[in-house]
């Protein structure tokens, strides 16, 4: 089973696939060459706004005994945390601002306001998820190891509880993310290097300690007799952020039309095919400018997956070109209003809690191959194959 057997691409010749790759490379080069002052101004403005929101939220919560102040402070703090995680943290750690050569806004230095240590996120998300996007058994973002999100995943009675697991995951998303890079699956199989596990747990412990001390001890203590009010406000702000990020992230790969792949499609995958897999595996949503900023521009998930390290403020303009390219080559470009994308995601979660024979749709990219077991020795260690591309792209 090769990549060209994926239903959506069967009409493309090899030459066309390469031509698409070349066009996308060209888009990348154009953006890279035109990065400048306006982009820096954008990110500096966003950082300033985020820090002001955070400060305003914390200050307002000094009056947390007064319910409207509790509400306003929580809303301000929640927005600050959303902006920090999405438009700043996620994108900075992708290296989107590294070109500025500014160590304060650089992927190697950025630490974000959530429980997962940046270093582990850069591995689990930046590397595993973005490299092996939507490849079953490789990309742990498919259901976060908790949910069955593809018909190609084996059903188990435990999946009946999916709607509940999903609600819990949404509420406590940052904790799910914190444990993500541990690779629970590998631990369960006894394949995890105990030294690495120890190191990672220590890192997480450190981060969790600092985060909790701040939100659940220091700031509540500062407000003295209103300790509890401030604590609940901070807790609520974190929950708001969790629900929002969970929603946005799930809308990136699980609406109808986003396809999951198996390891066979990875074989001999070229750079152009990698681009195609990113496009077909991702889904956008439309909305206003504010919505896009608050979602870290992940409404442009397709563009983000094509160019994860280009500045997020450019995705809107890039999307016009990508949409045009998709239209010319008759490639699907999945998008829709946020509520619709989210609705489809929830429906899939509900549906896949049942065995395949009870449900239909949510199609696999290639006809019927469900219920296979993935080979354990195929987990992501594909270092040499990947290194090859960097050389190939230079010609």
């Amino acid at each position: 089973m090769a990549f060209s057997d994926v239903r959506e691409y069967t009409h493309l010749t090899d030459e066309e696939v390469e031509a698409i790759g070349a066009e996308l490379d060209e888009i990348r080069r154009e953006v890279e060459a035109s990065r400048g002052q306006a982009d820096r101004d954008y990110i500096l403005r966003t950082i300033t706004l985020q820090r002001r929101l955070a400060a305003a939220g914390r200050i307002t919560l000094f009056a947390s005994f007064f319910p409207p102040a509790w509400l306003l402070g929580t809303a301000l703090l929640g927005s600050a945390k959303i902006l920090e995680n999405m438009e700043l943290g996620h994108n900075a750690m992708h290296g989107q601002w590294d070109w500025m050569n500014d160590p304060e806004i650089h992927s190697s230095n950025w630490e974000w306001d959530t429980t997962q240590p940046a270093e582990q996120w850069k591995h689990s998300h930046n590397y595993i998820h973005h490299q092996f996007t939507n490849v079953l058994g490789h990309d742990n973002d498919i259901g976060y190891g908790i949910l069955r999100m593809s018909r190609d995943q084996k059903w188990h009675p435990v999946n009946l509880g999916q709607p509940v697991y999903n609600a819990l995951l949404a509420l406590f998303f940052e904790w799910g993310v914190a444990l993500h890079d541990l690779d629970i699956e590998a631990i369960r199989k006894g394949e995890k290097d105990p030294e690495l596990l120890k190191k990672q747990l220590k890192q997480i412990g450190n981060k969790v300690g600092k985060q909790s001390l701040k939100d659940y001890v220091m700031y509540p203590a500062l407000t003295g007799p209103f300790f509890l009010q401030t604590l609940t406000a901070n807790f609520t702000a974190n929950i708001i952020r969790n629900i929002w990020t969970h929603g946005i992230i799930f809308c990136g790969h699980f609406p109808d039309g986003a396809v999951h792949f198996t390891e066979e499609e990875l074989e001999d995958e070229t750079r152009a095919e990698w681009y195609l897999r990113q496009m077909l595996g991702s889904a956008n949503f439309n909305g206003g400018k504010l919505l896009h900023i608050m979602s870290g521009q992940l409404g442009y998930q397709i563009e983000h997956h094509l160019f994860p390290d280009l500045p997020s403020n450019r995705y809107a303009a890039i999307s016009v070109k990508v949409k045009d390219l998709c239209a010319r080559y008759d490639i699907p470009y999945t998008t829709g209003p946020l509520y619709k994308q989210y609705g489809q995601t929830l429906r899939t979660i509900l549906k896949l809690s049942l065995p395949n024979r009870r449900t239909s749709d949510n199609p696999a990219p290639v006809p019927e191959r469900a219920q296979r077991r993935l080979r354990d020795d195929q987990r992501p260690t594909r270092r040499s194959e990947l290194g090859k591309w960097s050389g190939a792209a230079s010609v």
Partner: protein
Amino acid sequence: MTAPLIERSSALRQLRRLGKAMTTPLLPDDYLALINPLWSQRELRGRVEKVVPETENAATLVIRPGWGWTFDHAPGQYIGIGVEIDGRFHWRSYSLSSVPLVEGKTVSITVKAMPEGFLSDHLVNGLEPGTIVRLASPQGDFTVPDPPPEKMLFLVGGSGITPVMSILRTLDRRGSIPDAVLVYSARNEDDMMFVHELRVLALRYTNFTFYERFTDADGMLTADQLDDVCPDWSDRTTWACGPAGMLDAFTQHYETYGLSDQIHVERFTLAAAGGSAAGGEVTFGVGGPTVDVDGATTLLEAGEKAGVNMLFGCRMGICHTCDVPLASGRVRDLRSGDEHGEPGEYIQTCVSVAAGDCTLSL
């Protein structure tokens, strides 16, 4: 040595620690810098206070450093300055021309605009007072011990005067210049920086000799002419700073006489590898292992082969896990063919190859 205010008082230090727990994962500085950009210790910063023209194409930048700066540099050392141009920080190093611990809490560097140097030109002609720049702490061992040797010789060409100026001014502040000779070459009088100050210095100190050489009229100073301008040069401890050609000639001269130990050299321009250079000696971490790498092996692969613990992620230039700052030298990005050679610049080792000798900060 003057520690910055925030370090001097233990109460302030405690307060900062408390603040840090409240602003984690950021620092209190990240919020304070919103009020005043100099109130941050995260990256050394400075504000350009004045740009004083020295010659037609050289200027002294007077910079007020922000928090974290210690005014304890040794005269003769250089600092890094990072200036933002069109969204991007560009770094260069310049010798400090000011003496340590000057009044007014400023430091100064003197920059000469080079025809091909777009940053130097910007610094001399384009920098507005009030601009916030990044700074890197003073470095370098082109310094004079305290007390200085009894007999000294300074061999200077062009903008090589700046570290020497810092040394001479420091000696002057201490009120005594030992027996010293300064041989200073510039194209003409207009091009000679600090010429009036140096002439005055020569008048005030009888044992300080200032030999002015104008190369437009008299040609370059050659090594064998040294006997004419400073007959007892071999008795003196020498500090030489200037263009690479001049320094090569003089170091060779000293070697010939077996006096290599007596000359201290400061090179401004690193041996710039040509644009087509491929491969070179790569040093992994300052003082780390050095290996010969060809122009096709990525720095990441080369480091791994050399047994260096290199961080990596995607190995295709996407995830930036492998980024490290370049300490010196030039590298080429395999994807675009672009060369990068700014000290302190982050490079992606998984898609970069050496373009000449280079050193990575690990």
